């Protein structure tokens, strides 16, 4: 284990001991729910560790709430997705409706996809979805979007490049 990592671990540890309780309280006020508050407080620290850079412990509360706000936004976003998903399913004819397990699994997948697509430009997003979700060929996508196949390929590469750039490491 390198010295830098040890230090990071110690810093996170100190941050956790000093402010975990406070953060959980802050989240509980925002959410009005102790369970979710505990989960999000935990996720906040996971996120800090995932960043692999020294947290800003000079302004610990501001630092923690900045990250926690991002997670809150995710949480609320998730609720929007879930509601929309259930509405969409409710409108499906009976035989097409997925099983309860499938519903839950697909909701997870949906949230991941939604988070991924979030930062893509509209055309890039559309091309990527037509290929990856709808299974269209580049030629079909080009026809649908009124662009050449080379452009479709370019959109696909752009999509993956932004997705990679946004990834954790």
């Amino acid at each position: 284990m390198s010295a830098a990592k040890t230090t990071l671990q110690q810093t996170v540890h100190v941050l956790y001991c000093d402010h975990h309780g406070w953060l959980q309280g802050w989240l509980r006020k925002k959410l009005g729910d102790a369970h979710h508050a505990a989960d999000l407080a935990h996720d906040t620290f996971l996120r800090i560790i995932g960043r692999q850079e020294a947290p800003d412990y000079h302004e610990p509360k501001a630092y923690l709430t900045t990250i926690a706000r991002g997670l809150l936004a995710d949480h609320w976003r998730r609720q929007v997705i879930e509601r929309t998903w259930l509405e969409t399913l409710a409108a499906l004819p009976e035989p097409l409706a997925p099983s309860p397990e499938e519903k839950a699994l697909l909701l997870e997948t949906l949230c991941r996809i939604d988070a991924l697509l979030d930062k893509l430009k509209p055309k890039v997003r559309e091309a990527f979805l037509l290929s990856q979700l709808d299974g269209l060929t580049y030629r079909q996508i080009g026809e649908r979007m009124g662009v050449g196949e080379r452009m479709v390929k370019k959109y696909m590469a752009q999509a993956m490049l932004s997705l990679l750039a946004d990834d954790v490491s």
Partner: protein
Amino acid sequence: MSAKSPRPKSANRTGKQDIHRQAAEWFAVLHDENVSEDDRKRWQEWLAADPAHARIWQRVEAISQPFAQAADAASAEAVRETLDKARVSGRRRALRLLGLGGVALGTGLLLRQTLPWQAWLHGYAVAHAAYRTRIGEHRQLKLPDGTLLAINTATAVDVEFGRELRRIVLHEGEILVDSAPDTQSPARPLVVDTSCGRLTALGTRFSVRGGRQSGQVAVFEGRVRVAPVSSGPLDVVAGQQARFTAAGVDLDGRADPARESWTRGQLIADNIPLADFIVELSRYTTVPLSVSPDAAHLRLVGVYPVADPDRDVPAILAALEGALPVRVQRTPAGGLLISPR
């Protein structure tokens, strides 16, 4: 196609941005319906050229995975409709651009792999693995492509078959892979990922053992390419075994038959020190086993059944008393100590 394979010479100096760009271009090439055999070959060369390429590709796979899952679902259209209806608001977008929002993509796995120092994240991966065996348990799985996966005692494994890879993730413990040719054409590489590196099967039967710090591979048929996280790859051929860490691979003599025999419920001692055998046996029982130093060097030859450890481990210990000048005693702490008679 527009993606260029980096020349081997420049590979080490290629920046992260460049590797991202190359990976993104390969992604676009491979999903083109007009992808050629030649493109695929060059992509494989690119993958093999630098472990950093393989690592990035792992992330490409992880990112594509949820899309593939949704596309395969019967209700794919409902997924699409939901996504379009719930288009993202401006505020959220701003948060994201600042890097503040955002579900960790891909997700847990990547995090776990890039942070081997985080013991508890590793613990999380183990606890949430799709296939886990208890101490003393072993099981066999047939994967969707026909590959046989044997899972030894106290092991945690995930299996992820994507569009471009057949991927097995070994979090800890030991597996034996008897690979089948891919059912899809063109064939997807079959890989085993551990926190120390990636093993690529080249038509083969091999076992992998490992945890967070190090791993061991024994090859019984074909060839396995071992690519540690931060060093160049090495091919291990049939009959050889090797040890690896994140920093490198070292050949380690001939493939030990014991690394295969457990799939038949057998523990093989091929003229090994008693101490080594007891370490091996300890993997099958929760009772702490130890050897006194003056018995540790005694050599043991034999084939012992461990199909049912509750029954077999005591029987093996009794058999040891017959085979070697030792006796087994209970320790005050509740363990068992093997010492000279």
